């Protein structure tokens, strides 16, 4: 073990910021991260054990006890749930002969739940030893497990179904085409073009990309970084999966243009662990681009234009999608959001000016530079120019990828995706808004209904409260715990949701939810805490009758509290002691 740890540390130059890679290497060898390795690492990396554990315990793909040589993570998103998650779980439990969250008796297999793995168009899905498998059925699971017992891993089975090829990202594009403009445009002109296009960040927050680049270019510090946020964690989203699978060069070109614009020589792609299977593919594309002189030193023979891209694998955390949490994670720490200011453009990766953009933003920028800001502005609306890649899932005839122009109304959207008998649309994932058909004239745009791409459709046969409960549970699980309103508030909301579902809540509880939500969203540090109350609040606004129907008019004086059940533990301890003496 000692030799192994030494060799890994050597591979990564004893660099503390590569701690995630080091843990991945250890976990791949031992299938978990043994305590003993921490002692060795502590010595090598000059980090204390608590510092190491800080990082290790934060990410849910890292295990501290043996968790099976082959780990199966079942996608527990709301979409999986409506397409038979419970049945899938019991099939796995039966086939593997172990309970959810446990390891089978042979120690070969571990079975765990994980939030959305970016396969909502093919739900229910699971990650099997890092390989995504969709459209699971009992028969399919039987076959998979039988194969696994014969040491045969499943093949990557992803259908990247494009339902609507839009005018921007699907416009014909040869590799490196946008980079031809590097000869013609000065860095400042690149920024100007991006600024003129009016493009806003595609991750969800919608900050002006041009402005972000401009701020970064204006910093005094000359060492700068480009970071591509490929940590698409919002449940229901899989559009970055599509781009990274089918058109990664478009994304890389955007990064190269950004590097030229601000004078960065190092880029990083933070790839979510759920997309680990894409890492090899992306690396080979990067290598190819290097051979074509599109990456590396003196790109396209432009003097002093060096740019390298490294892929950093995440390890399972939703909040890391928040840009400052992502920076913490890139530096090998817990993915807890930083206080802002300073903003990443001032002090980002390694405290240097950094541009962080979403995968889709970089891809769109390539097109903007290639075709011009004027061309780009022809699409979309005046405040939300351009197009948006949507990941459509749930109760509709045509789930999959759509590239639509901003300004699409919900009515048009539902027609497009073939949704009938629709009850609700969750726009922008759990952190977005739940809307009813009364709002079908609302439009997808930054002024009305913003979305990072996740569009989940639910029909009238679904129990909306179960879906909202899934979202609330998701936020409780994914809260990093850094600030109290989010850490404790989500537990309060989850308990209230549980009370509503078990018909124990009263009307006054609905008011309490509103009050708590105000506190949580107003006083949390990052986007997770600020938006985690959205599913409950927006669904209460859109469907007051559903909530009303499930709550009592008057609050009961007595809470359900099972004394018998809660004294069992004591009785057992007493009996055990009696027996011993």
């Amino acid at each position, binding site marked *: 073990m000692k030799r192994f740890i030494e060799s890994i540390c050597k591979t990564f130059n004893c660099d503390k910021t590569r701690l995630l890679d080091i843990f991945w290497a250890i976990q791949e060898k031992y299938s978990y991260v043994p305590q003993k390795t921490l002692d060795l690492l502590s010595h090598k990396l000059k980090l204390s054990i608590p510092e190491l554990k800080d990082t290790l315990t934060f990410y849910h793909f890292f295990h501290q006890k043996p968790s099976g040589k082959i780990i199966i993570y079942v996608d527990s998103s709301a979409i999986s749930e409506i397409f038979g998650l419970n049945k899938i779980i019991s099939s796995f439990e039966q086939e593997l002969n172990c309970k959810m969250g446990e390891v089978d008796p042979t120690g070969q297999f571990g079975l765990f739940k994980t939030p959305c793995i970016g396969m909502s168009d093919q739900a229910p899905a699971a990650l099997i030893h890092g390989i995504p498998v969709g459209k699971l059925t009992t028969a399919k699971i039987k076959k998979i497990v039988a194969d696994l017992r014969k040491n045969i891993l499943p093949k990557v089975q992803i259908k990247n179904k494009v339902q609507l090829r839009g005018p921007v990202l699907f416009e014909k594009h040869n590799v490196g085409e946008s980079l031809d403009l590097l000869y013609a445009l000065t860095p400042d002109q690149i920024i100007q073009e991006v600024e003129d296009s009016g493009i806003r960040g595609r991750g969800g927050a919608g900050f002006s990309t041009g402005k972000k680049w401009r701020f970064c270019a204006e910093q005094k510090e000359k060492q700068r970084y480009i970071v591509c946020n490929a940590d698409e964690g919002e449940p229901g989203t899989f559009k970055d999966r599509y781009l990274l699978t089918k058109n990664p060069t478009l994304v890389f070109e955007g990064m190269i243009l950004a590097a030229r614009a601000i004078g960065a020589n190092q880029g990083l792609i933070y790839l979510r662990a759920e997309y680990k299977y894409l890492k090899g593919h992306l690396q080979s594309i990067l290598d190819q681009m290097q051979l074509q002189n599109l990456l590396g030193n003196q790109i396209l023979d432009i003097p002093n234009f060096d740019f390298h891209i490294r892929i950093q694998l995440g390890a399972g955390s939703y909040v890391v999608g928040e840009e400052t949490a992502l920076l913490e994670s890139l530096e090998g720490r817990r993915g807890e959001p930083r206080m802002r200011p300073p903003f990443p453009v001032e002090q980002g990766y390694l405290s240097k000016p950094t541009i962080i953009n979403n995968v889709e933003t970089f891809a769109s920028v390539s097109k903007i530079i290639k075709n011009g800001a004027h061309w780009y502005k022809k699409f979309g609306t005046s405040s939300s120019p351009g197009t948006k890649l949507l990941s459509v899932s749930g109760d509709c005839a045509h789930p999959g990828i759509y590239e639509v122009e901003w300004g699409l109304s919900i009515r048009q959207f539902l027609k497009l995706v073939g949704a009938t008998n629709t009850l609700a649309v969750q726009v922008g994932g759990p952190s977005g808004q739940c809307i009813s058909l009364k709002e079908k004239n609302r439009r997808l745009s930054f002024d009305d209904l913003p979305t990072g791409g996740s569009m989940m459709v639910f029909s009238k046969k679904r129990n909306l409260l179960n879906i909202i409960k899934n979202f609330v549970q998701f936020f409780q699980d994914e809260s990093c715990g850094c600030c109290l309103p989010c850490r404790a508030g989500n537990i309060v909301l989850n308990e209230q949701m549980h009370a509503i579902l078990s018909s124990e809540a009263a009307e006054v509880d609905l008011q309490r939810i509103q009050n708590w939500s105000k506190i949580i969203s107003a006083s949390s540090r990052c986007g997770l805490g600020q938006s985690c109350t959205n599913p409950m609040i927006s669904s209460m606004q859109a469907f007051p009758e559903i909530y009303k129907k499930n709550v009592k008019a008057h609050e009961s*004086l007595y*809470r359900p*509290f099972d004394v018998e059940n809660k*004294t069992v*533990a*004591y009785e057992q301890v007493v009996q055990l002691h009696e027996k011993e*003496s």
Partner: protein
Amino acid sequence: MTKNKKVSLATISLAGCFGCHMSFLDMDMKVVDLVDLVDLHTSPFNDLKDFTQKVDVGLIEGGVCNDENVERLRSFRKNCKILISLGECAIMGGLPALRNNIPLKDCLEEAYVNTPTTDTQKGIIPHHEDIPKILDKVYPCHEVVKIDYFLPGCPPSADAIWQILTDLIHGKEPQLNYGQIKYD
């Protein structure tokens, strides 16, 4: 509540340290005023154990750590029009709830078996039909019954207790000003 009628009051300490009750007595000379305003019923102050009639206000100190606490709390809910969680332990479990992250077996063994002062060869974990049974965890009062008001503090100051009681006596919605809930 009708204005300026004498208010009947009951108090109890569950899984608490009686600190909140001590703080109540810290009212100094106001206790004398309170005698004119309040009728004291079931309370450790007068050692009355059971309710003989329904009362207006019940003050609960401490959280819920055993089955007797549950029973007593339910009886308070049954007999008090208004129930107030008094202090940190009643509101959130407080110090006793520190055991919530430790397995019950370890807690009991630490307290009764492995202590240096255990005088028999092998310690005995107390159990008898007359002794309350410990719950798996310490719970805040509002997880067992509905609580109408929460009076924070460890302990809440005598001032704050006085304020809440006199507000209720005068038929006002109880309210504490910032100074009364600021602790640093």
